[in-house]
């Protein structure tokens, strides 16, 4: 008991700031806890001290353990922010707040568009979108901002087409979602953008119910008509798909480019072997591991007592899994600070682990494979237009990214 109180007293604040000289790696405290304190505690925004699990093997065991729940309505759940804690009681059942078997039912209503063969079929279209964006960037002024020219528009166009938004609405769609995601928006701007987007999706949903076509919103509309899901669930899922599909892929494209420019030997290797799909696929996995952009932890609450390394996590305790901790765990990945596109990296936790692992992971993989295998071969002289220290990082969100990436060629 004394030990637990003492460790809670000294619990470091979470999320933690990274060291400015190595912005891709998790904070030093995370790595120290991985080595020395595998069942530690951190203090979060509300003063509570959830358990903090950073080892790869522990995350693999616990994220499939039915004694841990994702039900955000349980008292003691370690919420990400004050506003999420306030809104949690009002959320409908979603794949992000239900446990099996309800989770299994909900997830099976939204899996189809993201399965491997469906996203593989999009590969030629993603290639075409990227090639056009590269042509446009090359025809424009130097330096250019790679976030605005490539990073953000690739996933925006792709997710817009998957959802089935008409081409002429794209600008409205992009502006609202950008305002919603931008780290520079005020809370009011973000809320207004959120309402605009929800209203837009609502109209789109009604139009697709009346006149279905081959896209995800039409598919969801059909499931609502068939009674497999509610309209509320469908709209919440459509917004979630849009939001999750934007920020994360955009960050991976921009940060991946920055990381490769900082590791020219790996960039050369990627250029040389960019026509080998197996090599490219593994390079994507390694960049996912190395960057681990989701940096606010995935969160659960214990529904039963769980013993881990001699410590008991009590029923009702909050638990946070720091994904970058696992991806920089030297027991699983030797020399984790090294970006090595040839290492076996498939076991990373960048998409999480367990039943809630990322829904859009196959789509993300195809997008990143197309971008990483094309961009640096088409622009072999691509270079930073500012010193590395001046590249503005966006560390405030659920996933970290770049506010801008000034490049020249």
């Amino acid at each position, binding site marked *: 008991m004394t030990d637990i109180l003492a460790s809670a007293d000294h619990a470091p604040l979470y999320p933690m700031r990274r060291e400015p000289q190595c912005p891709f790696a998790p904070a030093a405290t995370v790595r120290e806890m991985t080595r020395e304190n595998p069942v530690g505690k951190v203090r979060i925004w509300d003063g509570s001290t959830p358990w903090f699990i950073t080892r790869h093997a522990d995350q693999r065991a616990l994220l499939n353990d039915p004694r841990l729940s994702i039900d955000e309505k349980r008292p003691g759940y370690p919420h990400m922010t004050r506003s999420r804690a306030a809104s949690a009681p009002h959320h409908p059942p979603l794949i992000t707040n239900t446990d099996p078997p309800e989770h299994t039912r909900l997830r*099976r209503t939204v899996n189809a568009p993201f399965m491997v*063969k469906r996203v593989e079929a999009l590969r030629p279209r993603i290639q075409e979108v990227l090639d056009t964006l590269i042509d446009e960037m090359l025809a424009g002024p130097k330096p250019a901002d790679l976030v605005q020219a490539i990073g953000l528009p690739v996933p925006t166009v792709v997710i817009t087409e998957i959802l089935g938004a008409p081409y002429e609405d794209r600008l409205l769609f992009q502006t609202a979602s950008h305002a919603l995601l931008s780290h520079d928006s005020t809370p009011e701007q973000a809320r207004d953008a959120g309402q605009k987007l929800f209203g837009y999706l609502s109209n789109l949903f009604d139009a697709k119910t009346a006149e279905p076509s081959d896209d995800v919103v039409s598919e969801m509309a059909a499931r609502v008509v068939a009674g497999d899901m509610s309209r509320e669930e469908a709209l919440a899922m459509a917004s979630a798909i849009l939001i999750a599909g934007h920020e994360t892929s955009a960050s991976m494209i921009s940060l991946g480019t920055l990381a490769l420019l900082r590791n020219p030997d790996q960039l050369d290797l990627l250029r040389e072997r960019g026509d080998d799909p197996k090599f490219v696929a593994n390079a994507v996995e390694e960049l996912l591991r190395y960057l681990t952009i989701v940096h606010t932890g995935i969160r659960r609450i214990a529904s039963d007592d769980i013993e881990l390394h001699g410590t008991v996590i009590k029923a009702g305790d909050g638990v946070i899994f720091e994904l970058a901790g696992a991806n920089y765990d030297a027991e699983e990945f030797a020399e984790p600070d090294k970006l090595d596109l040839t290492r076996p990296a*498939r076991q990373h936790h960048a998409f999480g682990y367990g*039943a809630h692992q990322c829904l859009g992971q196959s789509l993300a993989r195809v997008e990143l494979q197309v971008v990483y295998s094309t961009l640096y071969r088409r622009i072999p002289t691509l270079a930073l237009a500012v010193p590395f220290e001046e590249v503005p990082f966006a560390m405030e969100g659920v996933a970290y990214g770049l506010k801008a990436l000034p490049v020249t060629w």
Partner: protein
Amino acid sequence: MRVEFDEPKCVAAGQCVMAAPDVFDQRDDDGVAIVLNDTPDAALHDQVREAAAVCPAAAIRLVEQ
């Protein structure tokens, strides 16, 4: 090697299909995995082991004979 698949656990992440496309596929309506061949040839065993290892729901069990 025999492939045992615990369907109710499957969350359709699709990782098995990417690792071993000759042994796993996904059902069209909900993405749930399908085992195409539950006694794969030795040449495929490494792929199948990887598929089992990357399954986030631990829904694939291999009985090595």
